[in-house]
């Protein structure tokens, strides 16, 4: 009918115009709301147990929803460069109470709760609590012991307990052989480059969460850079012994035959000697910023 056709034409006109309007409006509304800085992080219920009661038989589903909130929360804070991760613990707490078998949540929590800012919440105590709960619910999963040892080793510097955790983990089914080696190494020498490097590499290789992997990769690069600086310092000492003065440029080490090529950090930037004659990261290297951030928060 005629009237129907004209209606359809009206729709063809109204839809694109309307959608264009909606597109623009949504952008300006987002802008407007952005200025309001409504803290939408608030968690209404901090009690995981109550939450579990309220989610009826759908607790695992709720756990998944909370898990995505954990990831988003961390991702948002990280991308905005904010360092207060105070909600990370309650979110993880609720998530793992809702579904105690959600392994990824424990592993994620172990890394980011324990690590100092800016990467983590700087609460290794809570990380230990979380992992211990995880071990209780999943006693046969050896990687949780690895994570426990990891937190003791890196963040609490308690090598005794770290060694015990690795040893305990090595007894679990399917545990990899190096767990036992790790226990022995840490018991014997405490913190060492090779142990640290191995642990981070294992995290990097075994984790599936992209932010965990990214963080591990950065840690590996920093570790490597630190180790390389240490070796360069040793070479500089050698140079000083031979020539009576510290080198100021890498080229001097090469001329002296101590180095074969220009030494570069994992990000591809040449190392330099600082004002005290110690090897350092190049000012242009992105790793330097990370290193400074980590040192600042350590204090």
């Amino acid at each position, binding site marked *: *009918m*005629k*009237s*129907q056709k004209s209606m359809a034409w009206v729709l063809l006109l109204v839809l694109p115009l309307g959608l264009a309007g909606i597109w623009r409006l949504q952008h300006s509304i987002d802008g407007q709301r952005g200025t309001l800085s409504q803290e939408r992080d608030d968690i209404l219920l901090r009690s995981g147990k109550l939450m579990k009661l309220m989610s009826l038989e759908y607790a695992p589903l709720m756990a998944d929803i909370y898990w995505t909130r954990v990831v988003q929360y961390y991702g948002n804070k990280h991308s905005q460069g904010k360092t207060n991760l105070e909600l990370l613990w309650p979110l993880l707490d609720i998530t793992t109470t809702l579904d105690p078998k959600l392994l990824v949540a424990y592993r994620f929590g172990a890394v980011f709760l324990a690590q100092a800012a800016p990467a983590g919440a700087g609460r290794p105590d809570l990380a230990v609590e979380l992992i211990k709960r995880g071990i209780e619910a999943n006693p046969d999963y050896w990687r949780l012991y690895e994570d426990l040892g990891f937190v003791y080793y890196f963040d609490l510097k308690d090598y005794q307990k770290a060694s015990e955790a690795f040893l305990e983990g090595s007894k679990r089914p399917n545990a990899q052989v190096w767990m036992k080696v790790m226990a022995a190494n840490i018991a014997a020498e405490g913190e060492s480059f090779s142990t640290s490097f191995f642990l981070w590499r294992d995290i990097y290789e075994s984790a599936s969460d992209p932010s965990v992997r990214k963080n591990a990769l950065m840690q590996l690069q920093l570790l490597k850079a630190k180790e390389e600086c240490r070796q360069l310092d040793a070479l500089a000492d050698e140079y000083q012994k031979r020539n009576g003065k510290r080198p100021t440029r890498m080229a001097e080490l090469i001329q002296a035959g101590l180095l074969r090529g220009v030494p570069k950090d994992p990000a591809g930037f040449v190392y330099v000697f600082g004002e005290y004659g110690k090897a350092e990261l190049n000012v242009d290297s992105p790793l330097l910023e990370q290193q400074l951030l980590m040192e600042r928060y350590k204090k």
Partner: protein
Amino acid sequence: MPGSAIEIENLTKEYPFGFLHLRKKTSLEGLNMQVETGEVFGFIGPNGAGKSTTIKLLMGLIFPTAGNARILGKPISDVEMHRDIGYLPEQPYFYDYLTAAEVLDYFARFHDLTAADRKERVQRMLKKVGLETAGKIQLRKYSKGMLQRVGLAQAILHDPKLVILDEPMSGLDPVGRREVRDIILELKRDGKTVMFSTHILSDAEVLCDRVGVIVGGKLRGVGAPGQMVDMKTQGMEIVFELPAGSNAPLLSKVTKMGERYRLQVPEEELYAAIEQLRGAGARIHSVTQVKATLEEFFMNLVEADRAQAAAVEVNGK
């Protein structure tokens, strides 16, 4: 006659059905028909013949697959045409949270009437359809017959030039049917055009100037009720009693019903038969016309249809 009130041209309606609507049922096939101004037109056919489909197409409730129609000279898609027509749907139903007076007032509002005019008309209509005492009761408490009366009232409320009634007699008791007949005749006296559908032949015969017969979605004939061959009288029926022992003539043709006898003769032999009965001392109780029953009348058409091709049966509802 100033032209036709309704002109229908090749009106066709197919309903898709089945998986993905791939198959089609034809419920109305190429209908061509006119309803002249000022006449009462009866649209008759068995259930599912396409009567309601036609009326709904005219009212713009459903849309034709092909063909078109004009009402009062305007195409049916023209909403202004609805000012001058009244419509009673089949088995009407109205907002059951309203009273009869409220529902009529609501409908009257669409016709640009003043408040006082609306009030007066609503009262007049309620009286006309015999609901003046029930006007303040919510429609959820109404019986089917009472709803039918409300439906009739809303159809004629705004003094339309053309009234289309879909099965106006259904759901009514004999008194109600009589009242509807009177209303239709009154509309005719006032010069209105009335088209109504029914599956009850006697209603059509009493009221209509012309009838259209539709079976299986096809129009089978249009004309004055008496002209329709199958509606002609088939004969006369005489019911009588015989004194004990007397030997009745024509006894071979008689059926006995208790004390009484029933005899059917062709119309032209009626007087001869009565003479014979009187001779035998019979007491005559009644003489009535015998017509084809509705079923016989339509079944003949339907069977003819089946003989031609697979019958198309679509419920127009």
